[in-house]
């Protein structure tokens, strides 16, 4: 098996700094500009305060220690303590402000991503695994937080420190200052060299780790297949190769890391040596005090601290850039299905009131007008399909797998948009209705009865507080679900774990049906595969409930088996994306076409004499 691409999409272009990305990130900081300004301001103040320490030391040496006057030393020590107290307090506030800033920005970013994802159409969810989306919302956002709190803000402080120390060095003695700074071009070159090497190594490592994890994930989920087909050895060898590539990529990066620190330290100590040499000569020539020389030594060491930490910050920066790239790529992904202009676009821009029904009188007239539809490019799933279903009518669609039946449902719910033609509900194109409104009116019983964690009641009403407990019970009764629910010790308050573990498939179907009923739609869509994998008793319950509920409502049944069509008023036959026949069962049989063939096939399956 090839190294699966599972996680490769998470990869990055590997830029360490991307001005456009940073600008967009700053857009999220902007609402908290004052908080950000406070954080940076405090940092600048701190950088300034930290200059004072060595200066106090210098004064202590030059004024009191060298002239042998102990009287001023307590004052000096006191001043030093005072400066330390102040800077500790400021640092605490600065830390806290930075964290708060980070948290606020992350809150907004998370809301933006989550809301954006709510606007995405189903095809988006078809193509993006849930785990990856959750990662965007959690780990990637956290990486940005790291950038903001330990990276970006601190960089301001570091840069300011470098500037103030440079000024202090030059102010104390400009000749010595210039001499001690003369290694700077070399430091700059080292940093550049390190960056280039690290960028490549980092990208390599990320890619290899992603491949390893993708491969692992696949091997764990498919372990049964691996074992039954005796693939253990071969898969292990492949894994070992991937693992080894990762190791080698890491060793390359370790080389840079291990070398960077000592090289920077070397530069620092060359600086110190220069200060000793030139500075010492100046002291001897009385051009510099001995206290100033000690201050110089301290400043030089402080100067190199931020540079030494650079390797760590660089890592944070790179991770954050990769994360922000992924986040923005996600945010830039425009929803394929959009609400019409003027009705607000999607969740993120909408007010949170419950929608008023545009058309209060119950309707439910469904019309497909010359509909063409394809999931990809020009591979038409529906070709020029037209039909009308009158309010209150129940219609069944039949056809072989892949005939396009299920797509009809998705189009009416507007999970996808048609390429040509129109889908109309009560005369209005579904694209001209707000999606919420449309989906309130069109209910669906889906194949997979997805249950959320929470109680049975909360799975029936979902997050719609307007649905009362009484309505829930009524819906459960109508769905024939009340009996089993009320037998449970906690009834409707029974907790549901991990997608309905502990409930049978049939029970899950019944809850899903109660949910559809509780939302009281005008048009009900039913996929009969929903009832395919349940025992016959539950199937009977579901059928009975559906029949009762569909009375007086428009019903559309997608029948994979002809057994479900018994209560349909009309049967529509789909074949290769086209609507080929329609009528009652008897009429269709008489037509002697596709329907008859489908029917005969099933009949043969059940009836043919034993060979």
């Amino acid at each position, binding site marked *: 098996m090839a190294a699966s691409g599972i996680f490769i999409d998470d990869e990055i272009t590997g830029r360490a700094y991307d001005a456009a990305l940073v600008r967009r990130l700053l857009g999220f900081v902007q609402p908290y500009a004052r908080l950000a300004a406070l954080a940076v301001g405090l940092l600048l103040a701190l950088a300034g305060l930290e200059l004072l320490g060595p200066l106090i030391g210098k004064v202590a040496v030059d004024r009191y220690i060298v002239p042998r006057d102990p009287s001023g030393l307590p004052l000096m020590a006191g001043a030093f303590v005072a400066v330390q107290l102040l800077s500790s307090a400021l640092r605490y506030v600065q830390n806290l402000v930075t964290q708060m800033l980070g948290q606020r920005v992350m809150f907004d970013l998370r809301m933006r991503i989550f809301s954006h994802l709510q606007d995405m159409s189903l095809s988006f969810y078809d193509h993006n695994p849930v785990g990856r989306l959750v990662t965007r919302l959690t780990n990637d956002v956290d990486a940005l937080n790291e950038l903001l709190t330990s990276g970006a803000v601190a960089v301001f402080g570091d840069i300011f420190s470098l500037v103030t120390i440079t000024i202090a060095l030059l102010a104390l003695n400009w000749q010595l200052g210039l001499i001690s700074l003369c290694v700077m071009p070399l430091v700059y070159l080292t940093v550049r060299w390190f960056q280039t090497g690290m960028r490549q190594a980092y990208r390599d490592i990320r890619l290899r780790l992603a491949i390893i994890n993708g491969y692992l994930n696949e091997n764990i989920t498919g372990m049964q297949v691996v074992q039954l087909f*005796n693939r253990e050895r071969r898969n292990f060898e492949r894994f070992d190769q991937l693992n080894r590539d990762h190791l080698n990529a890491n060793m390359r990066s370790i080389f840079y890391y291990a070398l960077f620190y000592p090289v920077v330290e070397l530069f620092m100590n060359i600086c110190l040596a220069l200060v000793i*040499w030139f500075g010492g000569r100046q002291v001897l020539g009385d051009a510099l005090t001995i206290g100033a020389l000690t201050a110089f030594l301290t400043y030089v060491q402080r100067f190199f601290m931020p540079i030494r930490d650079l390797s760590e910050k660089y890592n944070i920066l790179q991770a954050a850039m990769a994360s922000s790239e992924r986040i923005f790529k996600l945010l830039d992904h425009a929803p394929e299905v959009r609400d019409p202009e003027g009705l607000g676009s999607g969740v993120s821009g909408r007010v949170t009131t419950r929608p008023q029904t545009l058309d209060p009188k119950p309707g439910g007239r469904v019309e497909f007008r010359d509909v063409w539809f394809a999931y990809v490019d020009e591979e038409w799933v529906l070709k020029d399909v037209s039909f009308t279903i009158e309010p209150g009518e129940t219609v069944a669609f039949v056809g072989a797998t892949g005939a396009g039946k299920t797509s009809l449902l998705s189009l009416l719910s507007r999970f996808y948009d048609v390429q040509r033609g129109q889908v109309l509900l009560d005369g209005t194109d579904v694209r001209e209705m707000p999606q919420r409104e449309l989906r309130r009116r069109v209910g669906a019983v889906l194949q997979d009865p997805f249950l959320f964690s929470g109680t049975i009641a909360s799975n029936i009403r979902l997050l719609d507080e307007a649905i009362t407990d009484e309505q829930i019970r009524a819906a459960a009764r109508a769905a024939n679900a009340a009996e089993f629910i009320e037998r449970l010790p906690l009834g409707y308050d029974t907790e549901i774990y991990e997608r309905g573990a502990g409930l049978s498939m049939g029970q899950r179907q019944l809850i899903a049906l109660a949910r559809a009923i509780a939302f009281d739609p005008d048009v009900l869509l039913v996929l009969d595969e929903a009832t395919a994998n349940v025992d016959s008793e539950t199937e009977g319950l579901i059928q009975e409930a559906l029949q009762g509920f569909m009375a007086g409502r428009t019903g559309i049944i997608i029948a994979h088996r002809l057994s479900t069509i018994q209560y349909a008023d009309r049967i529509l036959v789909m074949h290769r994306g086209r609507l080929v026949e329609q009528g009652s069962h008897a009429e269709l049989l008489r037509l002697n076409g596709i329907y008859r063939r489908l029917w005969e096939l099933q009949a043969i399956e059940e009836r043919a004499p034993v060979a």
Partner: protein
Amino acid sequence: MGPRLLFGYLSAYRKRYTLLVLATVVRTLIALSIPFVLRLAIDSITSGTSSQTLAGYGLLIVLLTLVAGGLHFVRAYGFSHVSRVVEYCMRNDLLAHLQGLHTGFFQTTRTGDLMARLTNDLNAVRQLLGPGVQNFTNTVVSFAITLALMFTISVRLALYAAVLLPVVSLVFISVRRQIERRFTAVQEQFSTLSAKAQENFSGARVVKAFAQEQAWVDHFRQANQEYVDRSIRLARVQSVLWPAMQLVVGLMFATVIWLGGQDVIAGQITLGQYVQFTAYLLQLVWPMIALGWTAQLYQQGMASLRRLEELFETEPGIVGGSLVPPSVRGEIELLDVRFGYRAGPPVLRGVSLHVPPRGSLGIVGHTGAGKTSLVQLLMRLYDASSGQVLVDGLDVRNWQLDELRRAIGYVPQETFLFSDSLAENIALGSAAVEEIELARAVRVSRLENDLPDLPHGLETVIGERGVTLSGGQKQRTAIARALMKDPRILILDDALSSVDTSTAEQILTELRQVMRDRTTVIVSHRISVVRDCDQIVVLRDGEIVERGAHMDLIRAGGEYGRIYRRQLLREELELDGS
């Protein structure tokens, strides 16, 4: 617990570790001798020296740094290297271990949990071995040496400075409990937040179908806000640490200015020694900060090690025997087999049956009757709790496991496909892909009907990055995969459920040819699929309630007859009712 596992991996590196620790000590000694050179330089300046002597001191500093830097590189590279190699070995061993574990384990353990161990826990262990060990040795060595050097300069000054050190520990201890508690609270909310998002995305279809998007945004906002609140609560305490540490160091400095200054004036120490002492104070700061971090790495690393060890200690529930029959005939026999999943209720309750070589067995029954469990015992995905499962008269527990599985082609209810080409997915079991075999498997499974729809035919990459197959196509792939093994025993476990009726009929027709010279077991809830089997058993609540050929069972008028009649009857009713 944890450490034992680690020592196993590290035993090969004992010598290297000793050398690396030695390198750390030497490097630290050299690095700490630089302030000593500074002191000599300052003292020589105050007593009036030559420019040449100063240049000599400068050169000495650079030379010492070069040696120290070289040792630093060796140490950093060495420790990291060991940690990465151990990570590599452990990762390999973990996969190898998982490959030996039984199906039951994977069904009771979530993939996410295993992945977390293989990624996060492994990473925590690597961090413990790399930066953790490196920092720890560095911290201990430089702390001890620095303190010792400070005492050689002035016992009095060193004592004053040392008095403040316990204050640092006190700050740590008092704040740590709070930090830990608040950190746990943040982590919990983080899980909640992830779980909510996960649920929303997985249930996107329902969320959309019921227009719940806005309600979910509000729901998510609450969880998000709680996360922010908890994080800020953590920040309030956590932000204390670093400034507190700085304050303590500041106090030490002030003490040195005051008392050390007096000592210089009194002639007890030289100005150079004063400068040297302050330089050492600066050196003390880093180890103190690193210590907290190292402690955290240690805690996390140890917890992760225990989790990994737990995984390693999981015994494979199924271990193969040693017998290999010279040739496989494909005879199946079950003798009073009982079986249940772990603590669960019994699934099979005394099942006995016999299928001769090249015979066929059909199994019908309701959901939960034990059909899948029964066939899974044959290839030892599970072991029977009592009774015997025999293939070719040999207890499956005595079979060499890979030989047993080679003999059986299993098409499960749910198809697992690897993200790879269709051809690779079919050829899984066979070492070298035989084109003719592949073509035959593709034909019999009716997968050839689908090939024109796939952009690159058999070379089409499927899965997430490629083409998504329909349920029926997946099942056909699984059938082709099983046939590709050319097994003596073919098991279809409800393998035609997602295939439409006409394709199913085609597959069955083709299969009949293949079945002629193999033993076949077919599980289905469609009577039409098992009708032609030599022998059909009806399972109910883990027991065989009926057995015989199709016509015999119909004539017997038992449960099978009822299932059959119901299927027929409903068919007729439906057709009349429309």
